């Protein structure tokens, strides 16, 4: 059973999160810099260039990398302090086995012991319950090489269909929408197009806090006179300066986009030539919005009708324009619908394949783009190929040197995987760089599921909250301890360079996977001596696919400050802008409009749960916080989750700023300080999600997913909010203990 070996408090005491305050030797240490390594930030999808200063196999500081063209030295606070994740007291330094009698719940074992145990458990579970009863979960903080390797490892070494990745919680709705409408799952443009746009429309993306460097691109457009439209339930820092603010109610973006399309049609602000020559199914899209008047949409979305009309006017009359969207419209049960509705606006006005034109997602995770191309999604093979497509399977089998029949079929996506673990159908799990206990919806359910695993092995550099449940802990590598590539949100393949060696007995992730494969008798499929060889195979496997890396080499990537895929042949210059000349990636070259009717969210407000809860990020923390909750300066900036609410709502509930409130959904409840600010809709509260346990907003979120992308609906939950005073004694440490005792 993969239950916590000791209490959470004991685990935290030994494995953290503890705070790293200063570089090795302290702030005043006068160290000689042995070398300066040009690489990239380990955090978000922008993958800013950075120079790491190294002394005695430790990263001791950073220097801006002015020459890297994407960010020209710019960094957000996470990038500035990212180096403090190294030399960390919490760093996992040797393999460990769960042991209830050991201090902290784990005892040190050798690599041989650890790997033998992992392999014997894989064999035992698969023999007893079938191959697919052992699953793997991966993350997209890892390089392209490792993403590709994980995909191949799960299929050929573990021989399980059940592999999925944490991009399931991030970019999948955009990926599905892009493929359906445009044929390629990649940002339509490099960021160099943003400053060329006459209108920049940011929909459901808190750019200033989650993609801070992108702010400068938007200001460059505005310095040329571009208008900025901001669509968000909160007046986030960039929205504050917008020309037009659309205060959309969570879960209603497709109604807003629909009404804008309705207006574009009514006022004939369409690009008829583009629609005629480069698209299909405009009539279906038009029919779906025939009744979506601004007045109708105003009721649904809470955005004044006049502002919807103004958005249509600005977008429809601008010669060029970029619509940038992120998780705000994507993390919904209609995330794909929202993306398709946004793309409809670009197609209707001919805003694709030209300078300053595009509708594009802003990829969230570090290698969120590359990580979703090389085959570690449950239904995907390298080159963004389809694991159920016989042609695709044949091509990949050839690249892998295996028989096509050896490649398992489609597995289940992340949320369903947790449900299958909970239901007892999946019995064993191997995970790498994924902290689903914090990042999955309905956290209490996830915890119950983890407790039921017969065996769980984790590869990670810190013991995450999920890792605390492991039977075997394998210490892997930090980003700066290994070499490879990632592909940034722009579709730019970039080079990650190793600055230091893994400390202690920690090993590079790919070496660990190769060792497990070897012990499973599948070593012949993984004959790599280094990650460059994995990259070369990855490129070959991508030839002819919609994510074609054929002409990419590590050398070119470094020499040219990155390469934009597709790079379909040797010497190809790369493709910063997709769909040039209105050529989309379908046999007929035409983009697809989609009819998008409005559908309500899964969790509905009623008298008992009358308030909308939406979740998201803050600038100083990153995703499940495994790294950023361990860096003192970042924790100090935003130490704990707060519940943002409008003064009108606060007043109606008798709540003052700083009061502790209890927020309760149909799944669970949490206590959190109120942050009363008039920068959020009065019917909505916001809580950021970077924290674990009782501070996790995902105790409240719903396990409902998009039917096409299987993206959970993190952005809408129905809740009630009460002042905690008077509840403190009733709420329920007692009740919690009872539950724990019973399970």
């Amino acid at each position, binding site marked *: 059973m993969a239950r916590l070996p000791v209490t959470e408090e004991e685990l935290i005491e030994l494995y953290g999160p503890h705070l790293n305050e200063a570089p090795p030797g302290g702030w005043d240490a006068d160290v000689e810099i042995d070398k300066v390594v040009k690489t990239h930030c380990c955090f978000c999808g922008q993958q800013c260039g950075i120079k790491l200063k190294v002394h005695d196999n430790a990263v001791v500081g950073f220097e801006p990398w002015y020459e890297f063209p994407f960010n020209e030295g710019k960094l957000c606070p996470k990038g500035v302090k990212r180096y403090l994740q190294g030399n960390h007291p919490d760093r996992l330094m040797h393999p460990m086995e769960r042991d209830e009698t050991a201090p902290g719940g784990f005892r040190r074992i050798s690599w041989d012991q650890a790997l033998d145990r992992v392999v014997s458990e894989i064999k035992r579970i698969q023999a007893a319950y079938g191959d697919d009863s052992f699953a793997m979960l991966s993350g997209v903080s890892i390089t392209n090489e490792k993403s590709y390797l994980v995909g191949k490892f799960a299929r050929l070494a573990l021989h399980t269909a059940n592999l999925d990745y944490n991009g399931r919680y991030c970019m999948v709705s955009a990926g599905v929408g892009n493929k359906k409408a445009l044929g390629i799952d990649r940002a339509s443009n490099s960021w160099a197009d943003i400053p060329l746009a006459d209108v920049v429309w940011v929909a459901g993306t808190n750019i200033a806090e989650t993609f801070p460097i992108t*702010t400068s691109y938007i200001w460059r457009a505005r310095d040329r006179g571009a208008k900025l439209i901001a669509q968000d339930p909160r007046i986030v820092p960039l929205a504050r300066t*917008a020309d037009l603010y659309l205060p959309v109610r969570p879960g209603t973006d497709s109604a807003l986009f629909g009404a804008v399309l309705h207006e574009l049609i009514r006022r004939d602000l369409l690009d008829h030539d583009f629609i005629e020559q480069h698209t299909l199914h405009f009539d279906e899209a038009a029919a779906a919005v025939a009744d979506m008047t601004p007045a109708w949409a105003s009721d649904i979305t809470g955005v004044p009708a006049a502002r919807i009309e103004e958005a249509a006017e600005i977008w429809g009359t601008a010669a060029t324009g970029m619509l940038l969207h992120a998780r705000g419209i994507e993390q919904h049960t209609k995330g794909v619908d929202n993306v398709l509705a946004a793309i409809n606006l670009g197609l209707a006005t001919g805003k694709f394949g030209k300078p300053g034109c595009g509708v594009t997602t802003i990829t969230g995770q570090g290698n969120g783009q590359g990580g979703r191309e090389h085959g570690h999604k449950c239904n995907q093979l390298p080159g963004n190929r389809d694991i159920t497509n016989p042609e695709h399977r044949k091509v990949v089998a050839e690249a892998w040197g295996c028989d096509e029949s050896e490649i398992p079929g489609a597995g289940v996506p992340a949320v369903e995987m947790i449900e299958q673990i909970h239901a007892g159908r999946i019995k064993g799990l191997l995970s790498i760089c994924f902290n689903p206990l914090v990042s999955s919806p309905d956290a209490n359910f996830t915890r119950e599921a983890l407790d039921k695993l017969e065996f769980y092995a984790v590869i990670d550099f810190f013991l995450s909250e999920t890792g605390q449940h492991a039977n075997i802990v394998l210490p892997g590598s930090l980003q700066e301890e290994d070499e490879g590539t990632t592909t940034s949100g722009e579709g730019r393949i970039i080079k990650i360079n190793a600055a230091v060696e893994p400390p202690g007995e920690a090993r590079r992730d790919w070496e660990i996977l190769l060792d497990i494969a070897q012990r499973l008798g599948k070593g012949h499929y993984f004959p790599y001596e280094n990650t460059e060889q994995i990259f070369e195979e990855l490129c070959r496997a991508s030839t002819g696919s919609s994510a074609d890396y054929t002409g990419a080499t590590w050398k070119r990537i470094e020499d040219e400050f990155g390469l934009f895929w597709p790079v379909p042949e040797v010497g190809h210059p790369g493709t910063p802008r997709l769909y040039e000349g209105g050529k989309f990636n379908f046999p007929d070259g035409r983009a697809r409009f989609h009819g998008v009717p409005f559908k309500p969210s899964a969790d509905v407000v009623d008298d008992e749960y009358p308030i909308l809860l939406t979740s998201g990020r803050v600038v100083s923390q990153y995703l499940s916080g495994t790294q950023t909750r361990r860096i003192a*300066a970042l924790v100090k900036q935003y130490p704990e989750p707060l519940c943002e609410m409008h003064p009108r709502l606060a007043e109606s509930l008798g709540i003052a700023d700083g009061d502790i409130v209890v927020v309760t959904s149909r799944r669970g409840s949490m206590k959190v300080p109120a942050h009363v600010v008039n920068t959020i809709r009065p019917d909505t509260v916001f809580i950021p999600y970077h924290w674990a346990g009782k501070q996790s907003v995902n105790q409240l979120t719903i396990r409902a997913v998009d039917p096409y992308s299987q993206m959970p609906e993190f952005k809408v939950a129905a809740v009630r909010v009460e002042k905690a005073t008077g509840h403190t004694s009733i709420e329920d440490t007692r009740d919690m203990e009872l539950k724990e005792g019973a399970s």
Partner: protein
Amino acid sequence: MKLAHYGLGEMPVFVVDQSRCIGCEACVQACAECGTHRGRSLIHLDRIDRATTTQTAPMVCMHCVDPTCAEVCPADAIKQTEAGVVQSSLKPRCIGCSNCVLACPFGVPKYVAEFDQMMKCDMCQDRTSEGYAPMCASVCPSEALWYGTKDEFRERRTGALIREYRFGSQQVRTKVYTVIDDMAEGPIDVVTGQQRSWLDDPFGLEEAET
């Protein structure tokens, strides 16, 4: 593309455009990484009034041509470099009286008890003297803090650069520039001159009630 490195004679300037600040604190975190005062940030980032706005304002030392802090220093502990950079107090001279803290029209100097002296932004002399941008302006994601030549500013950005301020009867000229929209329009009439915008009723609440 902006220059990474400025040679002699190019005379880059430091520019603050508060309106572009996104409050991310990259400047605060990066300032603490600067070689001469590692672990201690000397830039100020003010939250204007978080209850009503996300507006924040970064404040570096404006490096006055005739620095008030130096004028009021009874110990003559605050010096300017030849390049016009106003420095932290000279430790042997500083008596910790905090006159400078009280007198600075921009609220920049801070008395640091741990070192018993006044410390403030020195515009990353170690960097600027070598032709590199100060740490804060290097990392600032929104270019609210910016370092470059005036030509680069004109090429890339809108707004006029100003460096003359009046505080009551005191006229102050600074080395650091700030940005205003358009000089020609003159002072903003805050009573009648404001254009109505969505900011007056961001969520359409008044509209819904009428």
